[in-house]
């Protein structure tokens, strides 16, 4: 008996040694493809780097973020990312897009998951079919929708005109009134299946006998959803929403392809790329990328923290 603790700790040491060994390749790969670029980006955001001559970058401190000069008249002129209206427009676009798209996806995903959770013939085929929008590469679906939303040849305008919903063709992706709506439609169409799948997994964790008990208690179906199904699927739903929110905050490809150069839809990622590549303001773009990274990192930490708080004290 006296020997057992040392034997066990030796075993434990062996285990953690092999665990570290197995983790090493992954950590190395992450360091090369994620860690190094991230550090470089943060570094460049404090320099005056230009795409044409990256190596000549000089340290400029926080100038890209915020700088000011005092004029002789006593007026102070601020410049830099934190006072750039284009940046704050992109932030607002990103937040607006994320909140609306994730909210819609959560509602539609829940409805679809509830339908798919019911027993009916051909459920397997429907479950597979519903995933198709999600499986199509974003570039392809963005182009596809781009054509469908075309003001002259698009099927969407044709349909709506025939039905009588609109009396003249709408330039969905080009018009400043509808560009964000167009992006939202495509993103909801594309990502709702993912949401539905995650929620469906949560729904299937709920034991069926609870619903029988509810029938005996005489619970109205609407009440049954809000008092039984929703509280029980909430953990899965919250995970899905947080995943999607983090994902939506860095949206790039859909907007880049569907509505290029639209101030109404330009998000943080799109703006950062524009500065990095198109405008040759490499340092400024790096600063934007760094801020975007900080925002998402903060949200992730918040999500994890909220999740842990719930685990500890949330459930009585």
């Amino acid at each position, binding site marked *: 008996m006296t020997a057992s603790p040392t034997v066990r700790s030796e075993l434990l040491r062996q285990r953690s040694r092999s665990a570290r060994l197995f983790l090493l390749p992954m950590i190395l790969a992450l360091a090369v493809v994620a860690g190094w670029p991230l550090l470089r980006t943060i570094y460049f955001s404090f320099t005056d780097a230009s795409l044409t001559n990256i190596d000549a970058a000089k340290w400029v401190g926080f100038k890209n973020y915020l700088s000011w000069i005092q004029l002789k008249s006593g007026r102070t002129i601020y410049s830099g990312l934190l006072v750039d209206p284009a940046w704050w427009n992109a932030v607002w676009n990103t937040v607006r897009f994320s909140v609306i798209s994730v909210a819609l996806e959560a509602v539609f995903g829940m409805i679809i998951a509830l339908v798919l959770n019911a027993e009916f013939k051909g459920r397997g085929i429907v479950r597979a079919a519903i995933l198709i929008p999600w499986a199509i590469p974003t570039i392809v679906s963005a182009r596809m929708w781009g054509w469908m939303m075309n003001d002259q040849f698009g099927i969407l305008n044709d349909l709506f005109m025939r039905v009588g919903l609109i009396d003249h063709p709408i330039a969905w992706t080009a018009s400043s009134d509808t560009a964000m709506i167009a992006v939202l439609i495509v993103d909801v169409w594309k990502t709702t299946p993912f949401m539905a799948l995650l929620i469906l997994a949560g729904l299937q964790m709920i*034991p069926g006998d609870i619903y029988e008990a509810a029938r005996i208690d005489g*619970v109205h179906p609407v009440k049954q959803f809000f008092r039984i199904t929703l509280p029980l699927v909430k953990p899965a739903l919250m995970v899905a929403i947080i995943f999607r929110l983090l994902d939506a905050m860095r949206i790039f490809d859909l907007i880049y392809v569907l509505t290029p150069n639209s101030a109404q839809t330009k998000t943080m990622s799109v703006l950062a790329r524009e500065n990095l590549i198109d405008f040759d303001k490499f340092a400024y773009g790096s600063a934007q990328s760094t801020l975007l990274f900080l925002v998402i990192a903060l949200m992730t930490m918040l999500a994890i923290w909220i999740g842990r708080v719930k685990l500890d004290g949330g459930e009585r």
Partner: protein
Amino acid sequence: MTTIRMQDLRKSFGTFDVIKGVDLEIEPGEFMVFVGPSGCGKSTLLRLVAGLEDITSGTLAFDEKIVNSLTPSQRGIAMVFQSYALYPHMTVYDNMAFGLKLAKGSADDVKRRVHKAAEMLQITDYLDRLPKQLSGGQRQRVAIGRAIVRDPKVFLFDEPLSNLDAALRVATRLEIAKLHAKMHETTMIYVTHDQVEAMTLADRICVLRDGNVEQVGTPLELYEKPQSIFVAGFIGSPKMNFLTEQFADAYKTDILGVRPEHLEIKDKDGLWKGKLLLAENLGSESFLYIDIGAKEPLVVRQDGSAHQQPGELLCVAPVNNNIHRFDQSGRPAAN
């Protein structure tokens, strides 16, 4: 006080008939146990009474009122599930009060009824806990409590003890017996595959087999006068010995049934002779497996532990001619 009457009750899932025409009347305040092997349709029959399954044909009446198309809550029933089926996100109190609150009971009335039921089941201390913080036995009490607060006309149990360990099963069985005594005006139906539960709890037992009623009667009736080989073999543990050929011929019947407890070892002049194959010692009693030349070894129950050794030659005879005679069809033979 509710009478339950089933007339030619049938249930099919697709082309598969589960309940094949059940006629049964359950008296007001009676404790009726449905018993049978798995797949006999006993749980389905209970779910038909509960309203959790649609009746394919036939009628189900509570007090002469046909309830075929009423929802479970309209039928005034309460049910205890094998898996407890508690709402995992609600406290014990809320689990019990949920149905009442929905039925627009006054807050005071709900509170009073929940506390009364909780006291009856001794779960008052756990009212603020979640189901996952309770043991299996406590959970089952909460499930029973949730059923009690509904003040049901008909109380249904679907194998409520199956998920409990042996000691707890006996204790909870006693609780249910006490509950029945307290709620003697409530008609209760209890489904089990355990014939000990059936024998100890039931006023009357309904033995089901392949979707048909095999026999209905008090526990003693079933034990003493089984109307078929199936019932004779199902009720009693260990099961009845069945002998054929020369053993049955001696009693002028096709199949002879003798319960292990109705056989005794004789020093000599036994009716049947054979070698002892195996002796199972339970302390208070023992079971002897004797090869008397029949198809299966004869099981004999004996008080106290067995002193006989395997291989020993033993003589056996039925006590007081306590035997059952069946014909080829498995029905009791006419005298």
